């Protein structure tokens, strides 16, 4: 279930946001979408999720053209967790997760047993089963993030897109979320996460795509992309790569 993007372009009011993005997210892997502010990460995720229609280009999931399938069909394969759901949604966690079943339901029908099972599974997978009856507004930032993730999981997506999922999360909640994403990739879900934190990407991602000004600057395994020669011109900082004493993963420092 790998995602392939070919020459994706999107512009608004004369400003080019995506300037021919060609990239791949390998199936059943965690891909980090990296880049400075304004690089086009969120826009790219929205195009793949079908929220924005690109001006040109192609997006295929395991060979199927994502831009051509009907939107409900696409929503059964691709789910998006937005950066911050700022709107105050006074639903309970379970109700919010039930909304994730929307693309699977007929226009007039209610939840069937299968849907309830999917909701229960999503609540459990995101670790919010115990919060099911709480109102979304009463949750902490980390809990709410996981509730939104549960809603996306209830779509039973083959491809999960997350926009800055670790923003506003404390260290513990970050690691928990990454562990959760690892469990999803182990279950053969393809995960693409836009990430601010390069060290988080270095520690957790299988594959990274580095965007700058709407173009792909570099793409590949962490060890090849997260190196000073690639990062320094993009972020305009001096960068050194160390090796984590326990995990052996790269650790980046900036000066």
């Amino acid at each position, binding site marked *: 279930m790998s995602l392939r993007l070919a020459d994706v372009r999107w512009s608004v009011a004369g400003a080019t946001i995506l300037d021919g993005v060609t990239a791949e997210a390998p199936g059943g892997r965690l891909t980090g979408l990296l880049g400075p502010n304004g690089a086009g990460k969120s826009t790219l995720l*929205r195009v793949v*999720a*079908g*929220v924005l229609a690109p001006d040109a280009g192609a997006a295929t999931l395991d060979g199927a053209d994502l831009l051509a399938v009907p*939107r*409900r*069909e*696409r*929503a*059964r394969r*691709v*789910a*998006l967790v*937005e950066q911050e*759901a*700022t*709107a105050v*949604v*006074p*639903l*309970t966690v*379970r*109700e*919010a997760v*039930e*909304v*994730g079943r*929307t*693309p699977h*339901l007929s226009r*007039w029908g209610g939840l069937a047993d299968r849907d*309830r099972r999917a909701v*229960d599974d999503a609540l459990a997978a995101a670790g919010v089963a115990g919060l*099911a*009856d709480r109102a979304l507004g009463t949750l902490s930032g980390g809990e709410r993030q996981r509730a939104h993730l549960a*809603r996306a999981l209830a*779509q039973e997506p083959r491809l999960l897109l997350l926009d800055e999922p670790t923003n506003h999360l404390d260290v513990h909640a970050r690691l928990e979320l990454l562990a959760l994403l690892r469990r999803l990739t182990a279950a053969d879900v393809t995960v693409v996460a836009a990430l601010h934190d390069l060290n988080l990407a270095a520690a957790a991602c299988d594959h990274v795509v580095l965007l700058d000004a709407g173009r792909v600057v570099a793409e590949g395994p962490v060890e090849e992309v997260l190196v000073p020669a690639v990062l320094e011109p993009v972020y305009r900082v001096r960068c050194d790569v160390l090796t984590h004493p326990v995990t052996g993963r790269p650790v980046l420092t900036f000066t």
Partner: protein
Amino acid sequence: MARPRHRVPTGLAAALAAAALLVSLTLAVTIGPADLAPADVWRSIGDHLATLLGGGPAEPALGALRDGIVWELRLPRVLTAAAVGAGLSVAGAVMQGLTRNPLADPYLLGLSSGASLGAVAVLVLGVSVLLPVAAFAGALVALVAALALAGAAGAITPGRTVLAGLAVAQLAAAGTSFVIFWSATGDSYREILSWLMGSLAGAGWGAVGIAVGATAVLGTGLALQGRVLDAFAFGDTAAAALGIAVGRTRWLLLTVVALLTGALVAVSGSIGFVGLALPHAVRFVVGVAHRRLLPLAALVGATFLVWADTAARTVFEPRELPVGIVTAFLGAPVFAVLLWRRRAAGADA
């Protein structure tokens, strides 16, 4: 499996609301001059239903006069009030959900005023057959104008939408005043005034047909979209990612709301604050999930307007108030409280 907990169980709330509506309908018919008991109301209804089926008594059990009061005067009016209350309440709840704007309702966004202008224009021209159509057209034009005006200044925020709705409502009211000034004389002046303020006086079985028909068909259609409205609560991006055609769905549902508002205004004029206040009151009790909210808002809105109209015709007997004045007296404070709470929450009104 654990069911979600709510402040009040939905089934119980719905059963109570339905029972309250039925009792209210019956009692409201008995209130007023002429000595009627609740049983008389049902006896008259039974007689007339039997007659419709071809087996009724030759003489009504209540006597012609009292039977006429029940069947010709009060029952159609009470039923119209219930249908208009239910329809406005659902229309308001749907608009609030679709625009994520707690202040949205057919009255505040100018739909009712637009519908009134359409209706009054037709009334003065004397083509009464087209009344609901003209009211719908007026409501739709007002809706498009209000949203276009709100959007022209940038992002459509609740505050801008209300201001734009106010501008459209004022313009439509000015148009209505112009029509009155230009052509109305004597009785038609009073009649037109009742469009502006909202009144159920003189509602007959024709009004019942329009109001009940519109609310049953369009209101039910809207109520069945509860799940889609829940998805809108998470924002346009989330709704689109859930496979909903956001733009098309919003306009489709808002058009149905305009159609419903047009039909209701055609029989009752523009009655304010029902669509604003009732959904909020119901949310407070059963939560915001639209599958529960919309049916309950319909039942509670119906009961509310039945009593508001009963007050309008009896409190200052024999003089009658337009029911819109009663709903404004009751609803305007709710509007104020909402504004206050938004301010307290630090929201960008």
